[in-house]
């Protein structure tokens, strides 16, 4: 067995572990950004839906994405049994696990749009449907040799495949579920449902940030020439630039250095650099991250204004920044680094690559949104609504869906005060 095969396998295995740890990041992010009475539910369902996604990915997801089929979908390799894959210089099982982790992250992002009001049953059913019908086609088109891969679409680690897909499903869900009780006043003004723990949110960002080294640098799928180091540097720089940009813009516009906004800026930088991390120079990753940090600020305000209640800013962090990240390679991809597709506008490639990127964004975004919307609408009809009752929403999903609070003493003390 050759050394390269072993090293590649070890490196990508490390990547898979880091990406799966990002689920922990999402647990802290979602609970920290929401209210105490839903914390246990949100933490628990995240583990549960990742588990569902894992089993589905093993049964059909992997085959639909990477199996032999046509340019729309794969149709072999269901119920993967651990064999190596022809032409790949790393363990097949490691590759499988790495891809499984990505599918799980995309689903977790989608569930951001469900937060604090969807029934547990809605999570379970949609976890299955998303993992079979929404995610695999898009992943196949771009990464599984599908029609967008043939066009040379650049999406190194999944700004489109993972983040935009998840965000568009989240958008469909927020529209169908409608805002949380009390989010908007009669006159249309919004109330701020401040997250119950900013420390959790900050720690989640750090956990996701580190996990992203697995997500992006691991997507090299190889340890060859240590290229993963370069990808990791770009990743880090974009996150840093996004943080600083969001802090600056919120201070300039709102007059205060808003902590949740700054944290969203870090995540937006990470999401944006995900597509381009292997294709652009280091300075460009700072520009890409910085722009993402500004965009996320305006995006969050925009969604709030049009009355789309997005409790953890999934639409802005993963959607808006995902779109920008995908388009960014159309500007910044260099001749030397563009191993897929062509160089961007600023490197003599003209508008060709930007066009390919834009087409990818539009088609994948529309597909994810429309299919999710249809699936959720059918679920709503069949399941007699996707949302818990008003009473359940008020006592909290911890109690209504699971029968116990994540913070029993604190929630009870709070209820006593309000009574």
């Amino acid at each position, binding site marked *: 067995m050759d050394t390269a095969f072993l090293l590649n396998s070890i490196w990508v295995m490390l990547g898979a572990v880091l990406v799966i740890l990002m689920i922990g990041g999402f647990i802290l992010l979602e609970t920290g950004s929401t209210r105490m009475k839903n914390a246990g539910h949100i933490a628990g369902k995240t583990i549960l839906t990742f588990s569902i996604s894992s089993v589905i990915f093993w049964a059909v997801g992997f085959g639909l994405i990477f199996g032999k089929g046509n340019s729309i979908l794969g149709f072999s390799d269901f119920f993967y049994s651990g064999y190596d894959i022809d032409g790949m210089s790393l363990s097949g099982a490691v590759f499988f696990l790495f891809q499984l982790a990505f599918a799980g992250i995309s689903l977790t992002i989608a569930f951001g749009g469900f937060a604090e009001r969807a029934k547990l049953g809605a999570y379970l059913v949609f976890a299955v449907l998303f993992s079979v019908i929404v995610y695999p086609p898009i992943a196949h088109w771009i990464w599984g040799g599908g029609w967008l891969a043939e066009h040379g679409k650049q999406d190194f680690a999944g700004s489109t495949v993972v983040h935009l897909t998840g965000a568009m499903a989240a958008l469909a869900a927020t529209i169908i579920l409608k805002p949380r009780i009390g989010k908007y*006043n009669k*006159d249309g*003004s*919004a*109330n*701020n449902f401040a997250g119950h723990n900013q420390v959790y949110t900050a720690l989640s960002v750090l956990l996701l940030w580190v996990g992203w080294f697995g997500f992006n640098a691991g997507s090299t799928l190889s340890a060859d020439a240590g290229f993963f180091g370069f990808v990791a540097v770009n990743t880090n720089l974009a996150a840093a630039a996004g943080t600083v940009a969001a802090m600056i813009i919120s*201070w*300039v*516009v*709102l*007059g*205060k250095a808003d902590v949740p906004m700054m944290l969203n800026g870090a995540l937006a930088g990470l999401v944006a650099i995900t597509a381009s991390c292997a294709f652009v120079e280091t300075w460009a990753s700072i520009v890409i991250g910085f722009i993402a940090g500004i965009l996320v600020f305006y995006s969050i305000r925009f969604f709030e204004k049009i009355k789309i209640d997005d409790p953890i800013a999934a639409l802005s962090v993963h959607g808006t920044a995902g779109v920008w990240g995908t388009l960014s390679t159309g500007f910044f991809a260099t001749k030397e680094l563009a191993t897929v597709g062509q160089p961007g506008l600023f490197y003599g490639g003209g508008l060709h690559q930007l066009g390919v990127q834009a087409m990818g964004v539009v088609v994948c975004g529309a597909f994810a949104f429309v299919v999710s919307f249809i699936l959720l609408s059918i679920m709503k009809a069949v399941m007699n609504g996707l949302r818990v009752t008003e009473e359940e929403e008020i006592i909290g999903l911890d109690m209504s869906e699971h029968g116990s609070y994540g913070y029993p003493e604190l929630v009870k003390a709070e209820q006593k005060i309000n009574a």
Partner: protein
Amino acid sequence: MTFSSYPEIKTFRLEHMAEASKDHFRINKLHDEIYKQVILLALENTEKEFGPPPCPFSFFVTGSAGRSEQSVWSDQDHGLIYLCHSTEAQSYFLELGNEISKGLFESGYPYCDGGVMASNPLWCKSISEWEKQLSSWLEESSWESIRYLLIFLDARTLFGEKGNVNALKKQIFQMADHNHLRIKFLNNTMHYKKGINVLGRLLPETYGQHAGSLNIKEIGLFPYVNALRLMALKENLLETSTLSRLESMSETASSALGKDLYKQEFLKLLKYRLQLCDQTDYDSGHYLSLKGLTKEQTRELKDMIKHGAALFAAVRKLLEKEDSYGAK
């Protein structure tokens, strides 16, 4: 004009408020009148039960009432000084304070969240105890005790001899001067809500029922109020309203700071608050919706806010300079 019950006073208030609320000075006169009627009735009720007061006393209002800067709605802020010293006197005047507080509540003035009311032993004391309390506040000079002293500086006698409040204020002036404490008073009022961002745009509330409205009390009025209270401390002024404090500043101070511009701007702010804020309840009365403003009004509002910030900065500089010399 006498009243036999608090609801009657409330009715009187309702009848006269609409007319009085067209003008800043008239509305404050009306509030004073209502307060006085409540005090008279409360005194009558207390006398019925406990007999006449054991000795003379002064009742003072503070906060926006003390400064004669109330709007339509105003919460209670007051205290009491009595001239004899005994436990019987204390319990009598606490009863009276309680009755006044209850009467004000029933007449349409919400209780003070911070407990600055003559029903609270902290704000209802004999003159000798007041002297001791002020001294200990000054000696302690913690954030909280300085806050109490700042509140006391806005005290204005509404019933009884004026000399008592003034004598106590002079005590504060003297001690603050002696111990170089003015800088502590300054540090206590340094933080106020930002009203304009670096791009020069107004910063209204972003969430809640007042989204899109500007908190005119904290953003607009407070810098002026706080700056002039500090000047009152520096210049030993007994006046309580921001306008009269501006008027009575020494020649040196007013030429250093300028006063006509600030008088004009502060008056305009009061007018904006009274005429443009939604006066349906206490909370809403402090929020100015930016939607209905004309371009000209928006520009004026920005100027008022900028001038307030400039005034506060100038006063701050003055006090810091004084402090850096170590003494007056």
